[in-house]
């Protein structure tokens, strides 16, 4: 069964460093998303991406964040200068289309620990 894969599973970084979280969405999917879950809190939407541009982003997704689809398979989330409060699980998701009823398939997540 096709699945969304995320690497690494755990990323440890020093505050102020740049990190890139990587995702390989399901191959025939066209919409891509990043969500995060701070420990003990809800899953929060960060950004959606379609046709090589951001469709929507949340207030959390400030100038420190960027997304890119550098080739035909990868979808990346970059945090330019990490802060302690960026420590969270980051989930990538993809869907066939962007309509409301479309199911999003999630990866297993990358745990980001900012020290």
């Amino acid at each position, binding site marked *: 069964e096709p699945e*969304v894969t*995320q690497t690494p599973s755990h990323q440890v970084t020093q505050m102020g460093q740049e990190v890139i979280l990587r995702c390989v969405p399901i191959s025939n999917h066209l*919409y891509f*998303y990043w*969500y995060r879950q701070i420990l003990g*809190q*809800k*899953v*929060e*939407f960060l950004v*959606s991406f*379609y046709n090589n541009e951001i*469709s*929507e982003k949340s207030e959390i997704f400030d100038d420190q964040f960027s997304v890119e689809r550098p080739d035909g398979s990868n979808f990346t989330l970059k945090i330019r200068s990490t802060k302690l409060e960026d420590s969270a699980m980051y*989930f990538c*998701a993809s*869907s066939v*289309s*962007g*309509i*409301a*009823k*479309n*199911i*999003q*398939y*999630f*990866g*297993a*997540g990358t745990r980001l620990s900012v020290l």
Partner: protein
Amino acid sequence: DQQVKQNSPSLSVQEGRISILNCDYTNSMFDYFLWYKKYPAEGPTFLISISSIKDKNEDGRFTVFLNKSAKHLSLHIVPSQPGDSAVYFCAASGYGNAGKSTFGDGTTLTVKP
């Protein structure tokens, strides 16, 4: 502004009995609702969904009920099994928001053998 709320952080039921998980929402623009299940160290997995034009959707042991006037939905699991023990997230999305889903806080279901 918490648009999707799951007021019960945890629920414990006996194997074979019914599990009822509840979710409330405030945004009238939501027109599609989904339930996701999440095991530790895994991402959320889609379970069942319902469109706002329906009031019930059933899939095997799982049934979702939607009460639009009350802005309330519930997930029923019958009969509950120990393998159902997980965190259940209610999520909502609306037309024109590029598929973005707004999640509730989650309810941890424990099914005891």
